[in-house]
């Protein structure tokens, strides 16, 4: 069983909602990324999504766009991100999902990437702009190296496509809570719950819901119907806000603990 699958069965046994933070690698710099990974794991991350910075992040709102720009200004490359995971692995067992746009991976090479991902200890890869129709050889390669191909499904995804997507996915399904780019929204649409139910009908894979989640209440409401909540922009914004504060890690850790503040729901 993959480390991701194990994590989700552990959550299920404990009847606990999962927490999946996202950060951009190299924001504000790679050394800090390593520390942040450890801090996030300590603060309660069940899986961590690690973003590869890209020059043209079409699926991202301004917060993650700026994080990508900061990382690229530091010259961060995919190789650097892989090295960062390799360095952190001995100190951390939390599953890591690489979150990327396709072009940097394509230039690195499918075979290279799958092999390196396995070597450094990356557990899954999610490619924002790679849909199953274009991903066949790609998912095969990842599987060969025991890396989970994670796919997104959206409220606009038809049932026919949904079946096709889940048949190619493993690890978990990432359900996008609403049509749009990444970034906080005041209220969580009820589309996420309907979408999760549609996924449940065709797949036994765990479902993580993301896009626009930024508060403790929203996290709890996601836990009521899905297996995990993904929180990206809200954490990245916290990193941005405190980037020149010597106690940035402490702030981010506290922010996350506050997001996960226990209520009756995390154990329901």
């Amino acid at each position, binding site marked *: 069983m993959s480390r991701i699958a194990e994590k989700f069965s552990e959550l299920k046994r404990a009847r606990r909602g999962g927490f999946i933070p996202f950060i951009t690698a190299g924001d504000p710099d790679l050394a800090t990324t390593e520390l942040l990974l450890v801090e996030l794991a300590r603060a309660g991350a069940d899986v961590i999504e690690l973003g590869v910075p890209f020059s*043209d992040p079409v699926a991202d709102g301004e917060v993650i766009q700026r994080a990508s720009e900061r990382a690229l200004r530091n010259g961060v490359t995919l190789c650097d991100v892989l090295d960062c995971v390799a360095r952190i692995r001995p100190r951390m067992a939390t599953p890591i999902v690489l979150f990327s746009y396709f*072009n*940097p991976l394509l*230039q690195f090479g499918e075979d290279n990437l799958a092999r390196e991902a396995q070597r450094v200890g990356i557990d899954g890869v999610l490619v924002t702009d790679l849909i199953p129709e274009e991903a066949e050889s790609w998912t095969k390669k990842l599987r060969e190296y025991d890396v989970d191909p994670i796919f*997104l*499904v959206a409220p606009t*995804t*038809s049932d026919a496509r949904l079946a096709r997507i889940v048949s190619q996915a493993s690890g978990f399904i990432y359900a996008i809570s609403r049509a749009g780019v990444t970034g906080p929204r005041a209220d969580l649409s009820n589309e996420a719950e309907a979408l999760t139910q549609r996924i449940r009908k065709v797949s036994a894979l765990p479902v993580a819901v993301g896009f626009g989640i930024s508060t403790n209440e929203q996290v709890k409401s996601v836990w009521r119907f899905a297996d995990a909540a993904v929180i990206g922009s809200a954490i990245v914004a916290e990193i941005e806000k405190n980037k020149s504060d010597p106690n940035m890690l402490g702030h981010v850790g506290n922010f996350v603990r506050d997001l996960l503040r226990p209520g009756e729901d995390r154990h329901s």
Partner: protein
Amino acid sequence: MARSTINRSEPDEHGHWGEFGGRYVPETLVAPLEELTREFAHARDETDFWSELEQLRRDYCGRPTPLFHAQRLSAHAGGAQIFLKREDLAHTGSHKINNALGQVLLARRMGKRRIIAETGAGQHGVATATVCALFGLRCVVYMGAEDVRRQALNVFRMRSLGAEVMTVNSGTRTLKDAINEALRDWVTNVRDTYYLLGSALGPHPYPLMVREFQSVIGREAREQILAQNGKLPRALVACVGGGSNAIGLFHPFIGDEQVRCIGVEAGGRGEAAGEHAARFHSGLTSGGGRVGVLQGTKSYVLQDRHGQIANTHSISAGLDYAAVGPEHAYLRDAGRAEYICASDAEALEGFSLCTKLEGITPALESSHAILPALRLAKNLSSDDAIIMNLSGRGDKDVQLVADVDLTVEGDESHR
């Protein structure tokens, strides 16, 4: 890469020309792209759709546009006869209206009331704002801050037509970033919004659809040259930004294997990365045009070693883009089309030559094709003909050209 001449160029059902094209988009956009693909396929088979478009082309756009025998440019070259396909005379002043009109009819069929578009030179933005005015639709145009600055006249035109022009300050502040913003808008407002993409770029079905709407250029030109010159031309020459005016001219001639298809990219101001937009001019020192994925499609892309998209430069906003339409990538690898580049300085010289010798002021984009056309003509006999696509008029560029030091001024005095 094996070079064999092909005589047709059709994508598979997922929009792939060989390894190029396809659909590389966030999942949310797949549903609207499928909807658009279906709608386009239906419309394509309906005579009513084409007759409505035909009528608008004639009565609203002033088509067919003339094919003009440019005698003084031909004499200047001293070889083949140069014919200019006068897309500058189409309504709004460029070929962009052909595509905007076709797509707006689709948007209406689909019941979409809000239209978004990106623009570089502003010509596609103006064309889109125009068809939205014609049909009473809301129009939002994204334009990079750098382009807003250098194409101010078109910004004013779009606003007068009732469009909302959104200045894009991210990234390189040019066409690429305008497309990013338009895609973000579409992903967010996917249910009521139609994305009217302006070139033969982006995810399937856009490259195919845009080509179909622009092919009117080549169909007319083919008939016109046969009528005027009694035989097919030796070559076609067109500038290539995303590639819509070029593919529109080339496509109806693809089966005519003896007709060379020559695309002209922006050579900018130098060979180094960031100084040009010549995607087919490969090699790392020149910015590395290699196969990659940008904004929904696989094609040749200017990028660094790590797959980050490179900065580009061109004096013309409409050619200042890091990727090229996927069908061009296919035609080039198949050996059916050739791609060369012209520098900023050569474009300025072409601009000036065409203005002085023919009394036609071309857009700076189109101006890139002029010197290559002259050179080509020079090596052919005077019985031969070549067609150059004059994709747009240059009013929008007059100010910019006036601000540049015109080094070619003196060269023309002997004529």
